[in-house]
């Protein structure tokens, strides 16, 4: 591209670029339509032909819709997963844990799919919490559960960071109080005891002596934290028979500062810095022999990269499918036009020009492509919506499928390509002699 053109292009807003790109991709279809039908009214006859072969037409449109739907669904679903997982991780600027797998830690600390991990000591917590660039250092002590919902020990400041003001009730003020996630299985006023472990490995009754009262409920975050029950980290330590993070003279205190000498450990620490640059410095600083610091967003971006690679491979398959379907449908159309050849010959006998007959057949193909493509967009969105709902229900990550420019670019490119391909069956019709066809 010449520099002046690329400079101009780069200056445009992304939405304008997308719209122009769509127009560019759709232009061949539109221009072909205008050129083919210029001066004619072939729609009634095209409609008659579609109606005569309505079952075949419906089948063709559904075939196109399915192939387009797969392509649209793939793109929409990938984006929905990307956005949903990114939104769920948005508040987790930087996570520090014991060295190990970043992905395992991401799953455990951000998406609450816990696994057994070593704990960070009170000294490490103290270094992080005391760092001048750190605005918030919150322990995330996962591992317990109630009725299948994770029970996580943390601080009130973390709750405020994650979900802002409470939806109802108040913050916990006692080791026997808890704040429920938006869709947790307990409500304010309710009482429960936590079980040790989560899922299949749960040990019921291990913490039977410690009953929590729910005093507040968080706003919706669209993340697995919506199902979680948050309790003071001191309570998690207490129910495990450990020190409660505070020196005896501060007994009963909730939240920071913690006393390193009485800090039993935490599997992960969420670190939040006010300035973006500070995160990179902190990440470098706490990447050391005894700690691992990672950006959940960066790990997620790499996972998204893999997801994108898979989606791209599947998209190639979807495009191959679309082209095969288009070729199949157009071949089917050639066969249908043979069944319609007497009517087309009649038009020629009545004085219609060749180009008119060409226009009728092309309109039939274009209508199948257009209806199929529109149905396909709806089908793809519906499929992505259903899959999103299932994934949301299973993971509590809010995943919402929507349509965006890439899908419309795909559809415009498909429509343009097939509408140009549709010139072929229309041209094949022209090669047929009139009188033999007229005799039927």
């Amino acid at each position: 591209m010449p520099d002046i053109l690329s400079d101009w292009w780069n200056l445009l807003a992304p939405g304008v670029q997308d719209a122009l790109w769509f127009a560019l991709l759709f232009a061949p279809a539109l221009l072909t339509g205008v050129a083919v039908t210029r001066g004619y009214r072939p729609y009634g006859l095209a409609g008659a032909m579609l109606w005569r072969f309505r079952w075949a037409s419906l089948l063709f449109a559904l075939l196109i819709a399915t192939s387009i739907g797969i392509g649209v669904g793939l793109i929409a679903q990938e984006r929905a997963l990307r956005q949903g997982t990114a939104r769920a991780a948005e508040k987790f600027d930087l996570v520090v844990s014991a060295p190990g797998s970043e992905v395992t830690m991401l799953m455990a600390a951000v998406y609450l799919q816990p696994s057994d991990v070593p704990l960070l000591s009170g000294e490490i917590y103290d270094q992080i919490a005391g760092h001048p660039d750190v605005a918030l250092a919150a322990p995330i002590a996962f591992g317990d559960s109630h009725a299948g919902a994770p029970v996580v020990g943390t601080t009130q400041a973390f709750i405020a960071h994650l979900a802002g003001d409470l939806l109802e009730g108040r913050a916990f003020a006692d080791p026997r109080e808890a704040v429920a996630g938006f869709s947790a299985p307990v409500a304010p006023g309710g009482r429960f005891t936590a079980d040790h472990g989560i899922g299949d490995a749960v040990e019921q009754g291990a913490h039977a002596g410690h009953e929590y009262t729910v005093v507040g409920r968080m706003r919706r975050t669209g993340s697995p934290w919506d199902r979680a029950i948050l309790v003071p980290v001191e309570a998690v330590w207490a129910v495990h028979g450990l020190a409660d993070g505070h020196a005896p003279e501060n007994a009963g205190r909730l939240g920071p500062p913690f006393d390193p000498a009485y800090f039993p450990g935490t599997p992960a620490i969420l670190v939040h810095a006010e300035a973006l640059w500070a995160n990179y410095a902190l990440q470098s600083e706490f990447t050391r022999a005894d700690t691992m610091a990672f950006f959940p967003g960066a790990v997620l971006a790499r996972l998204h990269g893999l997801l994108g690679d898979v989606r791209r491979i599947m998209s190639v398959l979807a495009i191959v499918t679309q082209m095969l379907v288009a070729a199949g449908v157009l071949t089917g159309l050639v066969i249908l036009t043979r069944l319609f050849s007497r009517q087309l010959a009649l038009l020629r006998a009545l004085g219609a020009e060749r180009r008119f007959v060409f226009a009728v057949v092309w309109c039939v193909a274009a209508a199948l492509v257009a209806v199929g493509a529109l149905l396909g967009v709806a089908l793809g969105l519906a499929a992505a919506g259903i899959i999103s709902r299932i994934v949301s229900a299973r993971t509590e990550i809010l995943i919402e499928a929507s349509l965006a420019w890439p899908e419309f670019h795909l559809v415009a490119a498909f429509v343009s390509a097939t509408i140009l391909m549709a010139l072929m069956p229309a041209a094949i019709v022209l090669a047929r002699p009139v009188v033999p066809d007229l005799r039927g």
Partner: protein
Amino acid sequence: MIHRLAVASIATAAALTFAASAAAEDHDHHVGTLQGLRVVHAWTRATDGGTAYVFCDIENSGARDAQLVGGDSAVGSDTALVGFRLNSAGEGVYEILPSVPVKAGGKMALMPEGAAIRLDGLGAPLKQGDEFEIELEFDTGHMEIHVSVEAPNARAHSHAGHDH
């Protein structure tokens, strides 16, 4: 710019080498170190596009904290210190950073999906195996570093793990 005239990678490499040696003569600082700062494993990914990200490890063995504030380069038209962030739309974006600190006795890694030096307006493709120079700008002065061009999908310097 010299490399805009280059039509083949050999010519580009020659031009870059020329630029590098010319730059080295211009500067008093020894390439790669500056007042206790040492930069190793500078690398980028091969690309045909207009933008590249340079990553490296910065070590500060000096007695005072340093700030990386940006860079300069003859390879691109614009050089900036940026930080990666995943926005809520699930898109990775790089935002301009005013500076990043390199503490005395500490280390700072510029790495993929982290902080990086962004080169915009590349005039010629970067090919795997090429080398070029950029200048890192610290609050304490400038430093020339060699950047090696790795594979388009590389995740680290090909010599990473070696002890330089």
